């Protein structure tokens, strides 16, 4: 573990090119560049959605940051930027420390392989050599409490069991930075408690947690700082209680105009 881990963003803007229909076509694109006429209009009109706009913040050792916002506010996109999946269109992003991301339960899991095989497989996607992973598998299996189910193909697992498996694998090596999407809140209370204890242990070792969730209770319980996103912009960042309060206020105020805007657009 590196002594100082941090996430640092300055004016991060991310434009999502939406490719659909003719913008997916090479033929149309070639015609567009050669004719520049009516034929080309379809291909040239590529729609960009600004998913994140000038997001700047910095968090350091021991921070547990909650990303809060309505659907489509840019939470998952921001998580993906932090995980290194998307490169910002503008602005700078810099992170120090080993990142472990739990964006999706099923990544790297082969539905037809057993739980044991998938522990090795997902570990490899995380960058851990299968030899090391075999040594860690026992501890992971213990944490999942799945017992004999680990000998079954993960195709047969319930959503909750998948969450147990995915969380246990992703946190088997204490990461410096743990990035989680909201699916974890679908776990049962007993496992959530266990997961929280594990994360608290990380945070005591000065790890960073970034969690996106709609469950305000979970967020208040787990995080110390909050970041409120609205339409890809940072509305406020600060202590989690204040940010949650701001979110509640925002939803009350912002919902009616948003709905009318969408209604008129439709």
């Amino acid at each position, binding site marked *: 573990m590196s002594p100082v881990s941090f996430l640092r963003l300055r004016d991060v803007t991310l434009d999502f090119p939406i490719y659909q229909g003719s913008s997916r076509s090479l033929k149309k694109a070639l015609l567009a560049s050669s004719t520049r006429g009516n034929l080309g209009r379809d291909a040239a009109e590529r729609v960009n959605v600004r998913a994140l706009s000038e997001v700047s913040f910095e968090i350091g050792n021991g921070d547990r940051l909650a990303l809060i916002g309505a659907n489509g506010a840019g939470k998952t996109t921001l998580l993906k930027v932090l995980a290194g*999946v998307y490169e910002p*269109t503008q602005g700078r992003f810099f992170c120090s420390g080993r990142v472990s991301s739990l964006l999706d339960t099923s990544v790297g899991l082969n539905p037809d392989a057993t739980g044991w095989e998938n522990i090795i497989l997902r570990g490899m996607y995380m960058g851990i050599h299968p030899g090391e992973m075999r040594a860690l598998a026992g501890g992971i299996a213990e944490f999942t409490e799945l017992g004999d189910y680990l000998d079954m193909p993960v195709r047969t697992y319930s959503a909750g069991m998948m969450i147990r498996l995915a969380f246990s694998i992703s946190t088997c090596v204490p990461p410096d930075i743990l990035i989680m999407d909201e699916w974890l809140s679908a776990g049962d209370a007993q496992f959530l408690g266990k997961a929280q204890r594990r994360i608290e242990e990380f945070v005591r070792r000065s790890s960073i947690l970034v969690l996106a969730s709609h469950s305000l209770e979970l967020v208040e319980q787990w995080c110390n700082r909050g970041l409120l996103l609205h*339409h890809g912009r*940072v509305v406020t960042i600060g202590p989690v209680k204040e940010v949650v309060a701001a979110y509640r206020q925002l939803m009350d105020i912002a919902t009616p105009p948003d709905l009318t*805007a969408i209604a008129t657009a439709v």
Partner: protein
Amino acid sequence: MPLIEPGEPTGHQNRRRLRYPTRRWTRPEGYVIARVGGGPEPRRRRAQAGTVEKGGYAGQTESAVAGLTDLSSVSVPRTGSVVEFPELPTRLGCAASDIVEGLGRYWLWTRLAHQDMRLRYRGSILGPFWQTITTAIMIGSMGFIYARLFHVELENYLPMLSVGLILWQFTSGMINEGCGTFEAVQGVIQQVKLPFSLHAYRLVYRNLLVLAHNFVIVPVVLLIFPHPIDWLRLLVLIPALVLIVINGIAVSTLLGMICARFRDVPPIVGSIVQVLFFVTPIFWLASSLGPHGRWLVLNPLYCAIDVMRSPLLGQPTSPHSWTILIAVTVLTSVASFLFFARFRSRIAFWV
């Protein structure tokens, strides 16, 4: 709303924007950018909110950590003097390190390729050797019919056909599957940060495994129809295979990116490969073209097959096959690398 905000350039992401200054962010229908609640600007608000906050850090003993704490609670300075961002590596540097890092994860892509093979033949008793049987049946049936049609001796025709067809399956397989290098693994690309080159290595390695399974047929055929084999000359197969593998990585990366961006390309590639099968001397003899046969070297797939097939059959290699193959390898590698360097960061959006 212009995409380029006046401000300092912050890296190569910006250079891309600057090159296309006419491109604008078009607001999709129903997209609202109203500022929330009409309050102060988000940036200033954040600064206020941040100053209220105190503590929350587990280990604040180190001065470096304390420095970070201060930074996080005040607005981020725009000069970059206090908040340090490391110098961005160039695009070419990023691409090169991607390629090297991908190689370093050999344990991931080899295992994934083996898993691909297992899944493909899941449930069949023969496993991957099902592929071998399919190829053997195809060679057998084609061999007997075409030897008759072309009035050639079976003992000459069948070895040529079997080696040619197996090599064709290898090379064309990489091209056809190369269309899905990145698209086929979009779930992984959008969730985990991995070197992109890894997906190309996995694809090529998987095709090498198929080749290995098919190649079992070759010694059998050569035993039934013995040929004088120059064993020392077989050493030339190693550099030949290396060249083809490099080509395969380059082509599958290039095609993978183009096909991820333009979804009408895979059928085009499929058609071209199909045509190439008939203009490449696999089931017909190059010598039957007479003097026109010298134009065959213009087909890189012929060169690739020729440099491996001729030593195995104890025949002379066409004079220009090696030259063309090396030239094509250099060309595809350079083109693929430049394309990869330029568009690597866009792949996650394309798939």
